[in-house]
């Protein structure tokens, strides 16, 4: 039986094992060491939520605490990647993408294409997303659909500690720019993780629960919300197949389509906003390529089309919960012409 560690520890272990294996791997970002001038440890903070703790002393000179200038250090990481390093840069909150977006979507994402395949950009941008930490509208967004939209980027959203380690190792070894989304509310989640290194390939969705009545396609933190709903629905005799996409780019279309061809019903659960999202993308995919299999309209469970509220009561209502997934499943399974 594999040992159990948290999502946070799994990310840290992936970084440590890849830095050990390949000296071209470096880590950079705001407060990745952190706490300069604090008494005691040299990396007193180890990242704003402690994810990079311990790496600073273990890999001298390879963990860079950067100034608070995303446009500068994300650009530097991308440049270093083109010049032979494998930087893992931390964009503390994905909400800060605005100030460094040109470097990501117009530079990193384009190099391989514009240089005729002769340039590679093996950079990983780790970033936190999602609501639930009372961090208000500018620190709680789920902006992964924006990155998924852009050809040339790979977009990864691990839901479990096992996936976090294996997908981050794959991201570091990958020769293309990867945006690696970590949900703040998952860091303390424990789960079985092998001690050895392993790479989990991109574009392979995880059928995390099998069932024949309805397909729930989801990603990131919503995997757990969907599993909770599926557990409640099973008690009512509704068997849900829950698919964790793991990566939104590349997208494992086949697993989604095969499942819907079996169940004939689909609910998509996405913590992002409802427009131009993963929910709409998967819905469109199934409507186009599995229309003949559908026995009911597709339902989407998403956050509303509003900023994330600061009010705790409103934030709790904002985030999709298991009850909303249950309701959506019942709407679809109860649908009649």
């Amino acid at each position, binding site marked *: 039986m594999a040992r159990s560690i948290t999502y946070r520890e799994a990310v840290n272990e992936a970084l440590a094992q890849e830095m050990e294996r390949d000296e071209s791997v470096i880590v950079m970002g705001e407060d990745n060491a952190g706490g300069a001038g604090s008494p005691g440890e040299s990396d007193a903070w180890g990242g704003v939520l402690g994810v990079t703790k311990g790496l600073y002393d273990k890999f001298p000179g390879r963990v860079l605490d950067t100034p608070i200038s995303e446009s500068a250090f994300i650009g530097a990481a991308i440049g270093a990647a083109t010049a032979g390093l494998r930087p893992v840069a931390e964009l503390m909150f994905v909400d800060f993408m605005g100030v460094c977006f040109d470097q990501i979507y117009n530079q990193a994402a384009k190099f391989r294409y514009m240089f005729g395949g002769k340039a590679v950009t093996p950079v990983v941008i780790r970033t936190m997303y999602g609501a639930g930490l009372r961090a208000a509208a500018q620190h709680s967004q789920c902006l992964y659909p924006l990155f998924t939209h852009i050809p040339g980027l790979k977009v990864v959203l691990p839901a479990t500690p096992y996936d976090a380690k294996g997908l981050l190792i794959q991201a570091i070894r990958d020769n293309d720019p990867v945006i690696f989304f970590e949900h703040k509310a998952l860091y303390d989640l424990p789960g079985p993780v092998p001690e050895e290194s*392993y790479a989990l*390939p991109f574009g392979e969705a995880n059928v995390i629960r099998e069932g024949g009545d309805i397909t729930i396609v989801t990603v990131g933190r919503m995997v757990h919300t969907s599993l909770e709903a599926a557990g409640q629905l099973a008690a009512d005799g509704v068997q849900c197949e829950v698919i964790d996409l793991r990566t939104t780019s590349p997208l494992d279309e086949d697993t989604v389509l095969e499942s819907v061809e079996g169940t004939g019903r689909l609910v998509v659960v996405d913590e992002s906003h409802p427009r131009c999202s993963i929910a709409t993308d998967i819905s469109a995919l199934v409507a186009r390529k599995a229309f003949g299999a559908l026995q009911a309209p597709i339902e989407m469970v998403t956050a509303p089309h509003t900023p994330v509220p600061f009010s705790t009561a409103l934030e709790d209502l904002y985030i999709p919960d298991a009850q909303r997934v249950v309701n959506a499943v019942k709407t679809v399974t109860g649908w009649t012409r």
Partner: protein
Amino acid sequence: MTDDRIVPVTMPKWGLSMQLGKITAWVAAEGDDVKVGDDLADIETEKITGTLEASDAGTVRRIVARVGEDVPVSGTIALIAPADVTDDDLDAAVALARAVIDAGVPDDAVGGPELQTADVGGRKISYAGAGEDGDVILLVHGYGGDRNSWLFLQEPLAARYRVYALDLPGHGTSAKDVGAGPAGPEGPAGTLSVLAGAVTGVLDALGAERAHLVGHSMGGAVALAVAARDPGRIASLTLIAPSGFGSEINAGYLRGFADAQTRRELKPVVGQLFADDLLVTRQLVEDLLAYKRLDGVDEALHALVDTLLDGDVQRADSAALMAAIGDTVPVTVVWGRADRIIPAAQAESVAGAIRHLVDGAGHMPHMERPAEVQAAIEETIARST
């Protein structure tokens, strides 16, 4: 007091870490007369789906566990009793059994014995044991397997023996380096010799001067190599669908297993192992993929393919190893008649061995028909001196 003629049917322990099982279907119904070996129920664990066979004959008077509910290992799931046991006595026994099921697994339950490791020639080798007394049995899995391949056998055998299962180099949680492969200075024999060295190393770590070896497929060839080096140390050999007793082998399976990257690619490949493809659960495929993703496994499996295959035929010569062992070690060969990896006809080439051909089993009789394989192992042990 309940009538002592009531025989409980209990949730089996399939694998050292199993704590709960779930009945997915009852094959037997209340009122059925069953004999030993009849199918009673289909049971699903975290790892695998299997069929529970009756170990006692009689009439199934009560079914205790419902389809779909979790039952702790050794919890009573049904009652077998003669017709003259009263309903009151049966109901009392059902109430006791229900209390155990409803209590579930205690939070502090441990998931099997600690995994142990030995350093063998610089390689970390993992193994796990069960059983307190008796002779040492070491179980040696095949290509792509690991110590959990023995999940249906290790606990039952542990009632009478000290039963260990190891992860060969390149497998499970052992070191993934299997040596230089056929390209190395010793050629293909070099890799087999690394694997045999791991088996000997575990016997050394256990302090076992003599042991019974059970080897499956490639593990059969490995067990033979161990015995050929030091026949005096091996008390008996049970070979399950062993490699190297003929030229024919399903080369497509070996290469397909090494090459598969995704669930969709791997599932049909793994299905060939069994007489009944339905034994391949999502969890089994996920576990295999998790293993195959570990650093070093891809290289190890491809090195083993090159060791096992010469073109599309078998490279190992187990008959030569048999000759080296001589007739001092009792040998039994067990083969599933529906084996789609190595044809069961090759059992004829295992000179001097007692042969058991198992109906309804493919390449994995120790998973598909574990009771028959257990009986064969115990018979072989009984023949040893």
